[in-house]
Each structure stands twice: as C-alpha cells, then as structure tokens.
C-alpha cells in the first residue's frame, strides 16, 4: 500500500513536471534560436539551450528601428484601450449595481442581450467605415470597449459593498460621482486592478481587430507585424524593405528575436501578477 502510493507520487510529480516543461520549454527554445550566432545556425544540428550567445539579431532589430514604431502602436492601443475599457466598465457597472434605479431592468436586459446576439463582423466593419474610423486607432479602441462579462463581474463586486458606506457620504451631501470616485473606487481597487490586467493583456495580444481596421503599416501593432513576418509571403514585405527577414541568413533569428521582444513585457509582469489573474478567474467563476 505504502509502496504503491509512493510510486503514484513519483509518477505524479514526473508528469506535472513534464506538463510544466511543455508549457515553458518552447519559450526557452525561441530564446535559444534568437540568441544563436548566424554561423552556428547555418551549421545546423539540434541546439536545445543557448550556448554561444550573439545579440546580432536584437541589434539588427533595434538598428532597423521599425520595431519601435510597432511598439509605439501597441502601447497606444494598450494604454488608450485599457483606459477606455476601464472608464466605461466602471461607470456601467456602478449604475447597474443600483438595482432600484428606474430603468435598471431595461438597461440590464438590453446589455445582456448583446452577450448572446451580435451583429457580427461585417456589420461592425461597415459601421466603423461609416464613422470614418478605418485606419484610425478609434476603431481598435472602441471595438469591444466594454466586455459585458467583466462589467457584470465588477457589478457583482459593487453589489457586495455594504450600503451603509455610501449612506454616510450621502448624509454629507455627496453626489453620486463623488460617492463612486471617493468611496466605491478606493475600496474596489483589487477588483478593478484585476479587470484592468485582463483588459490590458487582451489589448496587448489582440491582432484580428487591428489587422482589419488599420491599413497603414506604420500604425500596425507588434502582433500584426509579427503575424506578417512569420506567416505572410514576401510580396508586401519586399515593398516595405523587409525582405531580408525572409531571405537573409539571419532571418530565423530575427523572427524569433521579434517574438521575444513582443512577449518580454508580459513575461516580466506575469510572475508578479499571477495571483491577480487567478483571482480574476475565480471572481468570474462565482458568477458564471
């Protein structure tokens, strides 16, 4: 009995170690390729970990400078997008936490319906075009500006705040915005931070929306550029003078270095913020 148990334990530890390795190793491999000197790469052969390190690919990327343009785009979208997401989500969630407000039911039904039934890609695209938002960050920022799901999660958090807290301020003659900004928001910071993180990661990672709405290359965020570098054939790249990515010897290292540069910000904050992410999933799960 005891022996069987320890066999299972060993097996279990080994298996989970394997899962963890499977999740992380691809990133190490990509890092390895990106740091490999050209000569080593051309020699071929399997290299699993960085041995001879060369920052050639990274220097190339930064000297070329295009990456800064994409980085700027990504930052604009991530910052303006997350800010818009948060502002609208907080306002909506707060008002909808007042269940006695006249019109509450209408608002609620109207909003929940959009979770289940959507206009879809083409009508949304036509709307953005009609508004003149094609090739503008507006289209990217306003698409999905409120995630109804996160809004409802935040709303349920607001609902759990004891009413007595607001009452005290109302006696002092505080207005509704004052109550929201000075009383509700400060005590809701953990929930808001969690939702902000999810929004920010979503903005950082999105590529479909910027890809369909932004035509000019110089506005493309990292993910869209990366997709093109990795998967599209060379035609559009030749015109943009990036054919070297495809043809030159350093091509593979450049691709992988671009990948690394794109995930570094996420990888840096992730370990510290992981517990908030987990909490976010769980707050949502209570509701869903």
């Amino acid at each position, binding site marked *: 009995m005891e022996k069987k148990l320890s066999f299972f334990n060993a097996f279990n530890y080994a298996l989970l170690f394997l899962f963890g390795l499977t*999740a992380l190793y691809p990133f190490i491999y990509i890092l390895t390729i990106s740091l490999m000197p050209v000569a080593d790469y051309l020699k071929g052969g399997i290299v699993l970990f960085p041995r001879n390190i060369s920052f050639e690919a990274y220097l190339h990327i930064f000297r070329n400078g295009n990456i800064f343009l994409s980085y700027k785009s990504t930052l604009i979208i991530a910052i303006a997008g997350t800010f818009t997401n948060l502002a609208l989500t907080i306002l909506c969630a707060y008002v909808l936490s007042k269940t006695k407000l006249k019109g509450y039911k209408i608002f609620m039904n109207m909003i929940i319906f959009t979770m289940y039934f959507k206009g879809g890609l083409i009508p949304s695209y036509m709307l953005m075009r009609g508004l003149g938002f094609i090739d503008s960050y507006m289209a990217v920022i306003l698409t999905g500006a409120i995630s109804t799901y996160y809004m409802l999660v935040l709303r349920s958090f607001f609902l759990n705040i004891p009413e007595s807290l607001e009452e005290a301020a109302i006696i002092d003659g505080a207005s509704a915005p004052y109550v929201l900004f000075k009383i509700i928001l400060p005590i809701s910071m953990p929930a808001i931070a969690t939702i902000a993180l999810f929004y920010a990661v979503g903005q950082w990672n999105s*590529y479909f929306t910027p890809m369909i709405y932004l035509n000019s290359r110089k506005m493309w965020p990292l993910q869209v550029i990366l997709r093109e570098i990795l998967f599209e054939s060379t035609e559009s790249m030749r015109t943009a003078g990036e054919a070297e990515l495809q043809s030159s010897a350093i091509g593979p290292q450049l*691709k992988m270095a671009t990948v690394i540069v794109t995930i570094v910000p996420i990888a840096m904050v992730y370990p510290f913020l992981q517990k908030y992410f987990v909490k976010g999933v769980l707050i949502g799960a209570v509701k869903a």
Partner: protein
Amino acid sequence: MSTVTTANTKMANRLKPKDSLLKYIWKNRFMYSMMLLPLLYYIIFEYIPIYGISIAFQDYIPGSPFIGNKWIGFKNFELIFSSRPFMEALRNTLLISFYKIIFGFPFPIIIALLLNEIRAVKFKKVVQTAIYFPHFISWVIVGAIILSMFSVNDGLFNMIIKSTGMQSVNIMGNPKYFRALLVLSSMWKEAGMNSIIYLAAIAGVDVQVYEAAIIDGASRWQQMKYVTLPGIASTVVIIFILQLGSILSAGLEQTLVLLNPMVAGVGENIDTYVYKVGLKQGDYSFSTAVGLFKSAVGYVLIMGTNRLSKKVRGESIF
C-alpha cells in the same frame, strides 16, 4: 440615530420612484449621466451592427449604407445552404469544436486532480505558474512557437526526426494533422488556465468528508473517486454545458494564424469563412447572412444550454 434615519430617507428618495418621472430623473441626474457613455457604446457599437444584419436580406451594393438597397428576402440563405464552401466550413467548425471538447475538456480536470495530490507547495506553485502562462500570450506567438517546433525545414521536431534518419513531416501543411494541431495547440494554451476553476471546486469540497473517508480506510485513489469527483461534478457539468453552447466558435484568431492553402479544406471554420468572403472578397450580403446564421443558431444554443445549467444548479448565470 436621527442621522441614520435621514440617510435612509435620502437614499429612499434617491432610489424609489415616488415623484413624477422628470423630477425623478432630475434627482438622479448624476446616475443617468454616468450611464450615458456606456449606453451610447451599446447602442452604437452593439445595436447598430445588429440592425446592420438587415443587409443579409438585401442585394447590397458595396459602398452604400445599410438602408436603401433592394430587398431580396431569404435568397442569400438559399445560396448559403447550396454553397459547398459554406457547408465545408460548417462541417469543419462542428468537427473541430467536437474534437476540442472530447480531448480538451477532460484535460484540465485531470490536471487539477493531479495538482491536488501534490503536497510540496513550492513545486505546485512553480508548475501552476508554468502551465497558466501560455494563456497570456497571443495566438500569433503560439503560431511562432508552432513554427519553431514543427516547420518542415528547421523546426525542432523535424530536426530530431531527421537526425534519426526518418522523413520530415509537414505538420502545418498536411490535412491529416491540421485538426489535431488546432486541438493540441488550444489545449497547450488553455488547459492550465482552465484547471483553475476545478482546483477551486476541489478546494471547496468539505474537509470533513475526506476525514470520514480516511477513517473508513479509503485509499487516496478511493478518496478521489468517491469524494473529490462527486464533489466537483456539478462544476464539471456546468462547464461542459457552457462549452456546448459555443460549439459554432471553433477559434477565429487561432485558425487565422495557422491556416494555409494546403489545409484550408479541413481548417476553414465559419468565422474565418465570414472574414474571407466578406472582408477579403467583398461579398457583404452573403457573408452577413452566414454571420446571422451563426448568431441565430448560437443564440438558441446558448439559451438552451443556460437553461440546462440552471436546472443543474438551480440558478441562472446572471
């Protein structure tokens, strides 16, 4: 005491409809004005596109607005169901979603059960940190990883295969492997994150039940079978039902990154098909009709599955 009463009446005044409507709205003007922007968002960016669906019933001329086109009734829908590419996309969507459920659904449960048996807290934390991480990177990056692993020329997998003297395998460009690639890559990306909810459900099982089981001499295997699994059964059922509700979404961003002409026949799904026919080929009416088909069937599915899960746990999602 008296201040509390004043506060209560003030709250009541603010929130209870007693006066005439205008007076009531004026009293709550801040509340309503805070709702203004969110409401505008929903009306403009959610409801106008829903109205825009009407072009599915029109002979839409590109460049014109939603209104003023010739109405053609259900002609587009007749076209859809006689269109071979659409039927192919529909079949692919259902098959891929089906595989994703069959293989992808149990995996997070297994991970959670295994993690639950780990007593070394540090080890557990490290493994969790590792397996949650892929959730936070984009499908483009996952595409890059797949490329670096499975590319025919210099992918790690093929280099290993070649070094053993075998022929390299084109995983990304072979219809035989492509669906498996979709299923496995979404498992790789999401299984860890999806295990969180089951871990929480396991943590919620009453410790006393385990204690009782141990006193009765239950082995760890028996504890898992007779205590843990029944304890998380309702969570499992609800997640399963919810996944059934989104069976028509086989993954837009994922497929768009990985799809190539060699595997289009087995990989194209409804979402990528709408994108291709609508935005790339400019056939707005037809692709909107396809989108409406998806939305309508999806709506029925989600409503049905919500009702089912309500029955399972006796309450609705919202």
